[in-house]
């Protein structure tokens, strides 16, 4: 097993290396910074770290992808991604890139389809609202960013949808 991993947080990618671990005493290097930590998982996903006496409490929330975490510290929340060999390889080859969602319209939150404003085959102008989704008494309108043709509509009014589920395909 590999004890060195790259980890992405915001714009920064750091290399973490596990130097030693004896019960809850962990020696770890983050880029050039060496830490000796007393680190304990006190509840499932909740860690207590003592770094030369300074107390940190962190809670991990694993996302659907096992390599992505949301980490809650005292004051903040960070999105963290583990970059292992496989993703590194793919990144170097340029296979993984930012998906701009160009061809699908979706809602980041689960909810209910209130209104589908278009039909298959419609030619719609930049900025046209194509679908309205409601969650928790708040309606959100989803628009196309450039001129588009509606290729497919995957939901109908009244449907309950998950977050990030494709709703409409555009060309």
């Amino acid at each position, binding site marked *: 097993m590999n004890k060195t991993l790259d980890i992405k947080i915001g714009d920064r990618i750091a290399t973490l290396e596990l130097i030693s671990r004896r019960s809850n005493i962990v020696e770890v290097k983050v880029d050039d910074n060496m830490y000796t930590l007393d680190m304990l998982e006190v509840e499932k996903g909740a860690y207590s770290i003592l770094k030369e006496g300074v107390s940190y409490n962190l809670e991990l929330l694993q996302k659907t992808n096992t390599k992505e975490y949301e980490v809650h510290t005292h004051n903040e929340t960070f999105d963290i991604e583990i970059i292992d060999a496989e993703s590194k390889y793919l990144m170097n080859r340029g296979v993984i890139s930012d998906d701009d969602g160009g061809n699908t319209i979706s809602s980041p939150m689960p909810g209910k389809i209130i209104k589908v404003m278009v039909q298959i085959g419609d030619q719609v102008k930049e900025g046209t609202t194509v679908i309205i989704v409601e969650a*928790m008494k708040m309606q959100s309108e989803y628009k196309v960013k450039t001129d588009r043709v509606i290729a497919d509509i995957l939901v109908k009014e009244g449907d309950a949808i998950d977050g990030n589920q494709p709703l409409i395909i555009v060309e």
Partner: protein
Amino acid sequence: MIQKILIANRGEIAIRVMRTCREMGIKSVAVYSDADRSSMHVRYADEAYHIGPSPSNESYLVVDKIIEVAKKCGADAIHPGYGFLSENATFSDRCKKEGIEFIGPDSHAINTMGDKITARKNMIAAGVPVVPGTTEPILDEKKAIKYIQKIGLPVMIKASAGGGGKGMRLVKEEKEIINAIRGARSEALNAFGNDAVYIEKYIDSPHHIEFQILADKHGNTIHLFERECSVQRRHQKVVEETPSPLMTSKVRDEMGKHAVMAAKAVNYYGAGTIEFIMGDDLKYYFLEMNTRLQVEHPITESVVGVDLVRQQINIANGFDLSLKQENLSQKGHAIECRIYAEDPNNNFMPSPGVIEHFSEPLGLGIRHDGYVYSGYEIPIFYDPMISKLIVWGETREEAIDRMRSALFNYKITGIKTSIKFLERIMNTPDFVKGKYNTHFIQDNEDFLLPPKASKTECIEMAMVTAFINYLDKLEKISLHSTSEKGINLWKDYGRKKNVSRL
């Protein structure tokens, strides 16, 4: 005497009402939609009955279903909470007709206060100051212009049946008047089926201050002082406190008297709230009356030391008010923060989902009214408010410190919440100084945006934690696949130190 109360609501307010029922030895009955079978109010009640599909207009808003359950289970009263049917005059009448006590006012009070033009007229007649403006719907656009010239710009055009910011137009220049009137009328017609609009003077840098009142069925009416509700986002209250940092005791007395006069003008009984708008000059005007319990009622309970739901039930029982105005006083300071399942870093997008981990702050001066638990899935059909955190302190400063510390210790994972946003409000200088009005959130965007730079060490601790957790996960998988169960390969790792790099 009321023996069994049906609570025609869900979420934190249903549980809050049931708590007082339990203390008073009254049985509580929950109703629930498809989405709410696993909700806490169902678990908390003595009895619970299903009333239909998840959308509230097919369940919590269906009068017939709720009445049917109440009759079937023998409830002698219905508490509507807030929202849903709480300000529905038809529902109040229907309860009366069925011989069930509606814990709220009669339809006359609801109707009079529900229509803004009618309410304005009644308040003027009762001697309660209202915002300068018209008392009749605008029919003649020319007369409207003349009237506006008389009271002076800026003005608000408002729908008589309005609410939620719909059918409202702010007019700053004379040339906008005609368009504003026409726009407001057409929007009001669409939204409420009623195009009556009226004109009000626009109060600049306004404060939203409301008074809690209680009235029994025998004409005794008292007020329980003010609540300052100016911290608002899109006309929704976010943080409330009492006493108001703006208030003087002279103005408080006077406003309290006006609040009582307002309630008496409609023969009000039960708990209600008179909302005022106030300028920096402490001039105040009646805005509207909420004929129900407010979301923010706990801060009044904290500083006055009264259980408002118990009072509501006693009033519904026909008892005389046990509280006397001269015996009431405010002690210390209370603040409420409303915690929403929403993402403040992403335009306050609602964030329904499953609560992974939930732990709330405890200790001195902390009150918590909520309904979610670890493993609970917040449904998409209802309001995103998941809990209210209320703190009390000897002084305003102590209350702010306590709220800041309590928010800091409030942990919810699995969904996004407004907790960090609320923490930033507690740190905003204008809030700390008590110098704010309803423009507070837009005026303080810089403070309220999430902080950009974090301490490097904190970031690195977050990375280390994810790193270790991920390694442990990998190890578990590899142990499992090689069947070396029970033996922790890592234990010896420190001694061997044979680190191999990728």
